[in-house]
């Protein structure tokens, strides 16, 4: 041992540029930054990235030439509402498209059958959740390569669907189609009557088809330049896009309102088929009715234990001024708002995600506590921050 001590071994400290160290040892890099009081992105602990929101830019209302008069399809060409959200370096583009489906459970045909009416009443009476609807989101995170969707894309989409459904923002009634009737007058002029006024209601109810339809909304959410978890951005973008949705008005040609065909199926049974040519009005649209007090915005947080060993003040022993701080830091857990960047994403195992209304109610709340212990204080702090963040974003969306 003594020999070794006497011989002089020169150890050259290897140093790496900041960005390379961050990739080799994200944990150390993050801890070093935190010990200096800021994050790798040079944001403060509770500082969010700036958000820029633009809605409705990608929406093109259907053109008036005849070929464009068609039922809305889910082929992505007809965008009913849209939002471009930029948070930090990440772009989230949401396009809302729609389709129309026949409402089988509530069709008047079924109502005529007594048994089903009873069944309908039972379900109607007892379950709240069936009164609400959701949109079908598909999240696509662009990483510059092709292939099947990743688990992250699937979970984000599913979480968006669940949160939207249980936030009760969209009712089944808001998506119900109230078709008008296109009437050809004696002088060959054509006009469309919508059931807006009492008088029109009378006319349309006479010609009204027995079937019921509803709109189905699809949301295509594309994320460009992902730098961290994307759920909160996707939710905020979806929320803003939904507020810009304009549903096209639909009508049925009067000649088609009572059209019935007999179709012979494979067996001996002849089935009466009714076909309705539901058309979308190229000029008329209505705003999608959302439940205003349920509009909420999401934010995310992370909790991490500060590692006293990684504290730069500890390394520089000559620095006596900072020495007393070490004891304080030993068991300290800090809350970081708006997780972003590779180091933060990989090292922070405890996360909190809150979807809050500006009025202080919550719609979705999720805590994952794999790393640092999530205390009541941390929860309360994140709750306070989420309310502020929610009001901020709601002001930004309203400005648009």
């Amino acid at each position, binding site marked *: 041992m003594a020999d070794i001590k006497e011989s002089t071994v020169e150890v050259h400290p290897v140093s790496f540029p900041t960005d390379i160290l961050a990739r080799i040892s994200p944990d150390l890099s993050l801890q070093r930054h935190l010990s200096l009081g800021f994050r790798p992105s040079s944001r403060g602990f509770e500082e969010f990235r700036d958000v820029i929101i633009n809605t409705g830019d990608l929406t093109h209302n259907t053109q008036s030439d005849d070929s464009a008069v068609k039922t809305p399809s889910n082929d992505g060409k007809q965008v009913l509402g849209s939002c471009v959200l930029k948070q930090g370096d990440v772009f989230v583009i949401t396009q809302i498209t729609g389709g129309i489906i026949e409402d089988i459970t509530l069709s008047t045909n079924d109502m005529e059958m007594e048994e089903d009416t009873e069944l309908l009443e039972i379900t109607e009476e007892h379950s709240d959740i*069936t009164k609400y609807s959701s949109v079908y989101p598909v999240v696509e995170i662009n990483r510059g390569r092709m292939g099947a969707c990743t688990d992250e894309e699937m979970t984000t989409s*599913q979480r968006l669907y669940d949160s939207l459904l249980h*936030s009760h923002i969209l009712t089944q009634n808001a998506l119900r189609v109230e078709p008008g009737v296109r009437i050809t007058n004696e002088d060959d002029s054509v006009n469309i009557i919508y059931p807006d006024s009492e008088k029109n209601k009378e006319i349309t109810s006479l010609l009204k088809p027995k079937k019921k339809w509803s709109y189905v909304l699809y949301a295509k959410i594309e994320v460009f330049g992902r730098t961290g978890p994307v759920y909160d951005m996707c939710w905020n973008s979806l929320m803003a896009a939904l507020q810009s949705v304009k549903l096209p008005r639909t009508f049925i040609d009067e000649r088609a309102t009572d059209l019935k065909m007999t179709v012979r199926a494979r067996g001996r049974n002849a089935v009466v088929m009714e076909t309705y040519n539901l058309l979308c009005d190229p000029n008329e649209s209505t705003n999608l009715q959302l439940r205003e007090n349920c509009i909420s915005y999401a934010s995310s947080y992370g909790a991490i234990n500060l590692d006293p060993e990684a504290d730069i003040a500890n390394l520089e022993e000559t620095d006596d001024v900072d020495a007393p701080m070490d004891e304080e830091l030993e068991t300290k857990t800090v809350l970081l708002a708006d997780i972003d960047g590779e180091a933060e994403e990989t090292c922070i195992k405890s996360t909190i995600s809150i979807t809050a209304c500006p009025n202080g*109610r*919550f*719609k979705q709340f999720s*805590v994952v506590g*794999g790393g640092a212990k999530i205390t009541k204080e941390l929860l309360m702090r994140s709750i306070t921050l989420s309310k502020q963040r929610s009001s901020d974003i709601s002001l930004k969306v309203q400005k648009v």
Partner: protein
Amino acid sequence: MDAQTGYLENVDGSCLYSLNSTKVISAVTGPVEPKARQELPTQLALEINIRPASGVPTTREVNIQDKVRAIITPILASYKYPRQLCQITLQLLQSGETEPYFHALELIACVNSTTYALVDSGIALKGIALGTTVVISKDNQLITEPTDEILKNSKSMHVVAYMIENNKPSNLLLMDSYGDFDENDILKILEQSEIKVNQLNKTFREYMKEKINNI
């Protein structure tokens, strides 16, 4: 609640678990050789597969898988088994809830049965994970372990899972809430679920004690 470990013969640990009308079989295989892309140089890799009661797995099952993983990963002594794999397969027999709307009951059944199966398999654990579902009804009543009917008419629903170390809940592993609620509700839910998890822990210990005594 009913649990029966060692239900399957060809895996290292298994459990048939039922709670109200939710029923699930969990199977744990491990530590075994992982596929090259799963292998982690320093710790145990974890693979979770959930099979729904009917149909093929969809995004809904992937979402449940993601949450089960978030709960199970912290309880495994993963550095004890470097370059190894633990495979958890969960087959739902009865979902016990309206599948298009909810996943809370299945998630909790999956977590609790996995804990039983993990202990049955003998993989080293840092603690155990147990969870419960709590709903707030329209008249602001807290109901634990709800049925499908209660879920459908609830104001908000919450899934809470705790890590249990040294016989008491030590760390909140997951809280997943949907609906309409405020911060007081959250605190009440956490309090209530901790009491429930303590009870579940007691049941768990009794079950394991009896099992060991019978060996």
